[in-house]
């Protein structure tokens, strides 16, 4: 594992009106491995991820992804990131094959054979319109376009919320598939702690916009006498 940081967030603060969504968050995600970001709903996970993707501008503090500012250089950053979120707002009018052909134009590293393999694995009909797919199929389609160019950084923002166990298995499989290639990194945000526990190397707990705890999962478990991640979370964050 290389120690270089893929994501470096420093003293990041963000307010929405009177609400402080992030308060002096500092975070460093090393290259390689799976980084779990856990927290209750409204803790600030999505706000942090939106800063990493350049969809929010840092009000104070700084965000660097691959050493670049994602707001100043969206092309340089986004072309190396695969992203899947709970919202998954793929254009409903597109067919699956159109979505693939559209997406491949943006990524020089797009792998047609791999995309086709994933499509078959996920049993997606190429002529089906996105809006006619089930929620699980839409998540699979989103996962397909996030993976097909083998991104250096895969960002999953609550990807499994509301999905059945089979689709959640596919998503976890994608995480494992991604880290099978050396040097690739996954940032996995979820409130389903058992999922994070299955795949994460490092866990950061976020609560009320602040980092409550951040450590390698193994260290965390050892220091808490073999407690599960659920129990550790409740001990440190409570129900907030």
């Amino acid at each position, binding site marked *: 594992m290389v120690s270089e940081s893929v994501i470096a967030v420093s003293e990041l603060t963000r307010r929405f009106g009177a609400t402080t969504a992030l308060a002096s968050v500092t975070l460093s995600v090393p290259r390689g491995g799976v980084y779990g970001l856990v927290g209750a709903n409204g803790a600030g996970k999505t706000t942090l991820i939106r800063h990493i993707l350049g969809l929010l*501008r840092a009000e104070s503090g700084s965000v660097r992804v691959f050493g670049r500012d994602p707001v100043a250089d969206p092309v340089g950053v986004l072309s190396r990131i695969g992203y899947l979120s709970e919202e998954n707002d793929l254009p409903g009018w597109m067919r699956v094959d159109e979505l693939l052909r559209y997406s491949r134009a*943006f990524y020089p590293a797009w792998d047609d054979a791999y995309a086709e393999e994933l499509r078959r694995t996920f049993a997606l009909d190429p*002529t089906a319109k996105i809006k006619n797919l089930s929620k699980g199929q839409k998540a699979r389609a989103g996962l397909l376009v996030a993976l097909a160019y083998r991104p250096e950084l895969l960002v999953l923002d609550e990807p499994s919320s509301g999905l059945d166990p089979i689709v959640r298995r596919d998503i976890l499989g994608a995480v494992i598939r991604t880290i099978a290639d050396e040097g690739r990194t996954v940032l996995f945000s979820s409130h389903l702690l058992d999922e994070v526990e299955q795949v994460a190397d490092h866990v950061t707990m976020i609560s009320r916009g602040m980092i409550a705890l951040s450590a390698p999962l193994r260290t965390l478990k050892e220091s808490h006498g073999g407690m599960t991640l659920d129990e550790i979370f409740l001990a440190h964050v409570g129900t907030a």
Partner: protein
Amino acid sequence: MRSPAAAIAWELRRRHRWGLHAVLTYLAVLAAVRIFVVRHPVDFENDQTFALVVVVPLTATFIYFLAVFSFGLSGDLAARQSMYPARLFTLPVTTAALVRWPMLYGAAAMAALWFATRLLAVWPAGTDVPVVWPALLAASLMAWTQTLTWMPYALPGLRVMVTILWLATIDAVVLLALQHKTPEPVMLAILAPHVPLAYLTARFAVGRARRGDVPDWRRTRIARPPRALAHARGDQAQAWLEWRQHGRSLPAMVTIVVPLELLLLFAFREAPVIVFEILAAVLLTPPFMAAFVAGTLSGGVTPFIAMRPLTNASLVGAKLKVAMRSTVIAWLPIVIAVPLMLRLSGTLPLVLDWARQLIDVVGGPRATAIALLVLAALLALTWKQLVQSLCIGMSGREWLVKASVFATLSFLAVIVPLAHWIIGSRQAMAMLWNLLPWILAVLVCVKLAAAVWVAARLYDRGLFGGRALVIGAIGWDVAVLAVYGLLVWILPTLLFQQYFLALIVILAIPLTRLAAAPLALAWNRHR
């Protein structure tokens, strides 16, 4: 709120409060003008002036009400599915109640709009303005718009065609009745059945939609193999997406409306003035419709689009390219249909005679240049209408969009009566003519200062490099000089001073708002 009726009314009022406030403000201004400025009916020199004074803002209000009460602002007009909000289907109320209340509110709003218009508008002297039947017509048009909007369709796009044809048919029947000087009781008898009929049809349509019953004729078509698409670059793929999402609306609308307009040539072939008006209406149809389509093209950026690894300039560039393609394709039916319909209707000799008269006055080369310039100006105007609001829409700020609409309507509400007053006063006209160069010069200074400010922000934010900005500025200068040179050649300098033409051209060629679009997008994309 203790009843579904109150809840539906509250939602409509709450959601569209800014628009409804704007309408009320406009009506209050109109009332003030009516009571304090114009106390009696006035003599308008022609119908067009009267139309400009009251019809433009009130037609905008009419269309706004149609969109609000049919829930048409938050759905896909081209989709097969009903546009009635699906979330209301799960409420524990009958389908009749779901249909009845929005229909009742819509009809009441339309009737109120008519009564306000009749009461407050400045009507020409001697005009006998009817009381009841226009209110009933407005309510009928609202009811049918709601019905046809809420109905599920078997094919995509069918909703637009059916709605336009049906509403045009109702209008045509009323116009025919007016032409035959039909008395008010007969007009009422013609219009009275519409609202109940529309209500019954809407009940059936919403009931179907509530059951998820959407007919699909596409299943009977022979399945086509998926069309192979190959986008070499991201910006090409983005242009394809923009085209599929927004590019086809304008050509489709023009293709539907223009043939109907041109059919009027057959009815009025003996009246040269009306033939001229029909042709003018046809030529102004694409820019007019582009103003409506612009809202969809400049719509907000979804997270899916924001996540594309493209620069803000490329995302805006894709929209500009699609607007250009959409403009060219929208004009094709006109270029083909106008000569054809002129020939078939027997009005071609009339138009050729006008052309000969123009050639006699200005000469062949100048006449050709004027014709080409008018065509190019109309194409450019269509494109400009499509893209000039990008800097508002792409900001993704709803308050900015609403403020812009409000400002435009307020401007119209003030400028139209002001223009009418100036045209009617010889002294004011002379003063305006003397001041016009100064007014234009001030506007040019404001435009150029704003352009410099936008360019500085574009450079500071790293959205454009210095070289790109310089090339853009040179391109704009070349366009201005080319159009200016052409106008100086075409127009006699006795009529227009050269500096006057230069100021007009500088104001007409798009610059600031276009340049501000990437800035607005960056403001939205990186909040």
